[in-house]
């Protein structure tokens, strides 16, 4: 839209006000849409609770590793895997 090779300060300020307004308005619209959306999704918390996501494995503790550890312990205790019941494996930081 702008064709001249230079721009004075007044125009710069005008354009800047305009630009910051566009940014503001756009992000406000986005914020509103997100809010509306969260409502539509049936008050998100309820929705989230009614359809709980399958909890992904914490990184680093894959199924294989867990079962492998279990296997080692069984070896050591001379027990069969069915006799031992690992209720949870917690990752310590």
């Amino acid at each position, binding site marked *: 839209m702008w064709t001249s090779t230079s721009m004075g300060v007044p125009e710069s*300020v005008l354009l800047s006000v305009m630009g910051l307004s566009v940014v503001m308005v756009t992000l406000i619209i986005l914020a*509103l849409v997100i809010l509306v959306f969260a409502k539509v999704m049936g008050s998100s918390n309820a*929705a989230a609770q009614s359809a709980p996501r399958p909890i992904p494995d914490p990184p680093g503790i894959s199924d294989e590793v867990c079962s492998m550890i279990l296997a080692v312990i069984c070896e050591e205790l001379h027990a069969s895997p069915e006799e031992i019941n690992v209720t949870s494996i917690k990752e310590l930081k």
Partner: protein
Amino acid sequence: MNLIAIVEGLLKSSGYATMTWQQLVMLVLSFILMYLAIVKQFEPLLLLPISFGIFMSNLPHSGTFEYFYQLDHWYDAGILGVMYMGVKSSFFPCMMFLAVGAMTDFGPLIANPISLLLGAAAQLGIYCAFIFANATGLFTPQQAAAIGIIGGADGPTAIYVANNLAPELVAPIAVAAYSYMALIPLIQPPIMNLLTTDKERRVKMKQLRKVSKAEKIIFPILVACLVSLLLPDVAPLLCMLMLGNLFRECGVVERLSDVAQNALCNICTIFLGLSVGATARGELFLRPQTLAIVVMGLAAFSFSTFGGVVFGKVLYAVTGGKINPLIGSAGVSAVPMAARVSQTVGSKTDRTNFLLMHAMGPNVAGVIGSAVAAGFFLTFFAH
């Protein structure tokens, strides 16, 4: 042919004989940047390739960089000139944003949409720098716009805009942007402490709600659609950002999310850095304009921080003290550095105040905000 002639020829064609003072200065500059990247760890992933690109491009007669589109045969452009095709076509900045999207969790923003306002306010510096750049009379308005975007504190956005509005300034803008992003922990805290009261800094914000998977999946599609329709010129960049995020959140394309974050991202980082650096030829780089860009980049970062914190204070007032103004500064983006600065400044006042997750909202909002600002400039100046 005799021995003396060969030696003479060798010496004449050697770089020692033909180096200009500009090239020498650029080589020294590249060593300084390497030092900052390696020892001071200033965003080394990009500054190290950029500085090496500067180094290679300013070796006399090395033939490592020509602008491929000025040649009869693109394949004679040299190793860095060939890589530059990915910059010229805006391919690399888009791929970087694909990776950024795949690495970003927009959850804190969705949980607290008011973050978006802070992400908008922290674009103030873009316009301040734009005005200053125009005021100096050294730059065209296109160049001024590209310089302003440094204040967005997003490398790919800055390179994308510079490449489209002022390709001759890609190198100084990229160097300034990444350098200041690395300096965020030095630039922001004084401004934040100056603008906020002790009481404001002690505000503890209530825990964010959990965001459902569906919201996280729909969010990137929604943003890509709404913003790209409003400001079509920024669509390539923004859509790639949101595609990366969709890869991440949808949960059915792990492979693509992984490659976008790792192999593809790293390859593009190397090529982007090297070829952007290579555009910094001494005779063009060593001008007063470059110094002006460095100064204005600092101004842009400072005013963006100012804008974010002041708007944070407004929200603090409006919400009756529920918003800690310190998270406003995170709106400049520079993910996740700026959010960590909010956390650090906050916990210095009160050790039990954990602002990191709250600051992540404005932080990622700042990426969107800068993209919108970029889209506005592109719409206005690119046609």
